[in-house]
């Protein structure tokens, strides 16, 4: 066994490895012995097959297998022993000769590796980063309030149809002013006044009361065929070909009413007894907005920090190698061919650079993620998920259980650990650099994202 490294340049190196017979003979024998016990061959009882025969049948395959294993083990331990900081994984070199397992018992392997570029990164108070505080505007407050009241609103029957009303009734197809025999006649159809496009048609329905009979052309009222096909319970093709008027008999007119600001709503929205008065309700809404905004601010800060640090650090990458590596690792992925990789390369390099910076920060500053951090992060993302379903206040123990459940899956766990790490790094950066707080309006804040 002979292993050595040759540097080609600062970023590329070649690891050469020679495997001789003594290196693998013992392992091969062990495997063959194991095979011998299990192999079934006509003419022999199980376990009584002569070694020579087993060797002849499986010997080459086992040697290839074991040599392969041995090589990857050795390469790995070599990398660990020499403390090589590699990008990607070692790849068989292009100059690698074909290994002849049949005739030779000494094998040479050549691997290309890419060495992670050295980088100097010093975080100091001299680096300034903006931290935006978004002002809560009247409009945002109202929006949030409406969303809460709207969520718990309900439909109530009203006298006459207005702009916002929902009209329920039965359709009957007309032909030359009379009811068409065997025509399309769906019952209990709900029309929303808000989506009627044509003003004239809308005027016909406006002010409709129960038991009114209205004649109008759905084709004109709803220019969208999907809507019509859904409404009249016909196929889209039929809807496309549809012409003429329909008679619509109104059975019920309802209107969506937003919930009133009272204790019932408070209880429904935030849990029993949490919010008790309108002031508390307002405060709570403000708080929710602030919480949402804070998340966005943090996100913005992480982007800014990333950009700033990326700009500060200049590194070169062994691009040719990375391309080869990406191609090799994604061989099964048909979407990823050489061309896509070419176009994706700059983005991939950016990511890689950020990863390197992150690792650098982690290593130099001893940032650690502990079990508690991961759980905390999992809880947080669980809470976000619940919030997406509209469950604003989930009991803590419930969250805890959910988070634990999430962490039981390896894939999720990795993601959570990654997320927690990211958060810690950002927090560390925030500590290390000078943070300038800036007040900013919502619109300006949004513009920050647009320009990128």
């Amino acid at each position, binding site marked *: 066994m002979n292993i050595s490294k040759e540097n080609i340049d600062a970023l590329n190196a070649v690891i050469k490895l020679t495997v001789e017979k003594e290196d693998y003979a013992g392992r091969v024998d062990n495997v063959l012995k194991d095979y011998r016990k299990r192999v079934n061959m006509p003419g022999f*009882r199980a376990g*009584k097959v*002569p*070694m*020579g*025969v087993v060797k*002849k049948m499986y010997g080459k395959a086992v040697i290839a297998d074991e040599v392969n294993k041995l090589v990857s083990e050795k390469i790995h331990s070599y990398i660990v022993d020499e403390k090589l900081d590699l990008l990607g994984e070692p790849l068989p070199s292009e100059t690698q000769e074909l290994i002849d397992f049949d005739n030779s018992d000494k094998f040479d392997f050549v691997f290309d590796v890419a060495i992670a570029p050295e980088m100097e990164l010093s975080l100091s108070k001299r680096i300034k980063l903006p931290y935006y505080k978004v002002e809560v505007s009247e409009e945002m407050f109202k929006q949030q309030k409406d969303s809460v009241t709207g969520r718990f609103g309900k439909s109530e029957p009203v006298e006459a149809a207005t702009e916002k009303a929902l009209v329920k009734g039965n359709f009957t197809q007309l032909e030359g002013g009379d009811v068409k025999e065997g025509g399309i006649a769906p019952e209990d159809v709900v029309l929303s006044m808000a989506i009627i496009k044509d003003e004239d048609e809308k005027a016909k329905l406006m002010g409709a009361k129960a038991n009114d009979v209205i004649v109008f052309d759905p084709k004109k009222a709803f220019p969208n065929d999907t809507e019509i096909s859904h409404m009249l319970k016909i196929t889209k093709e039929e809807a496309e070909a549809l012409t003429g008027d329909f008679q619509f008999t109104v059975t019920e007119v309802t209107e969506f009413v937003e919930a009133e600001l009272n204790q019932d709503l408070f209880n429904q929205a935030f849990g029993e007894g949490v919010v008790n008065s309108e002031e508390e309700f307002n405060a709570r809404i403000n708080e929710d907005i602030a919480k949402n905004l804070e998340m966005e601010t943090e996100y913005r800060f992480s982007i800014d920090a990333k950009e700033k640090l990326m700009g500060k650090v200049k590194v070169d990458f062994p691009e040719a190698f990375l391309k080869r590596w990406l191609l090799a690792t994604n061989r099964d992925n048909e979407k990823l061919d050489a061309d896509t990789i070419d176009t994706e390369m700059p983005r991939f390099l950016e990511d890689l650079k950020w990863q390197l910076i992150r690792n650098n920060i982690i290593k130099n500053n001893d940032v650690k993620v502990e079990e508690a951090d991961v759980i905390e992060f999992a809880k947080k993302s669980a809470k976000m998920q619940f919030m997406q379903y509209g469950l604003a206040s989930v009991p803590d123990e419930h969250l805890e259980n959910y988070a634990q459940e999430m962490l039981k899956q390896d894939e999720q766990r990795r993601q959570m650990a990654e997320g927690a790490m990211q958060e810690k790094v950002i927090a560390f950066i925030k500590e290390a650099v000078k943070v300038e707080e800036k007040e900013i309006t919502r619109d300006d804040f949004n513009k920050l994202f647009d320009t990128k």
Partner: protein
Amino acid sequence: MKVIIKPIVTEKMTELGEKLNRFAFVVDKGANKLQIKDAVEELYNVSVESVNTMVYAGKSKSRYTKSGVIVGRTNSFKKAVVTLAEGDTIDFYSNI
């Protein structure tokens, strides 16, 4: 005189071959150990360390049939167990 008549291929001998590097042959009754050694060395291109020989007596076999009892004898033969020098081996399965 043809010394080696045939190799003995049995489970027992496979085991001996793998553990002790010994291989057995049925040999001519008149051959002595030296002759057997020379014959094996020449035939298989190996070096022989030692030869043990034994003569198996033929067994009498009888069978009852419709037309009476048939009595006969199996052949008597000489068996030689050859120990090879380390590193040498004989592959009786080379033709499969």
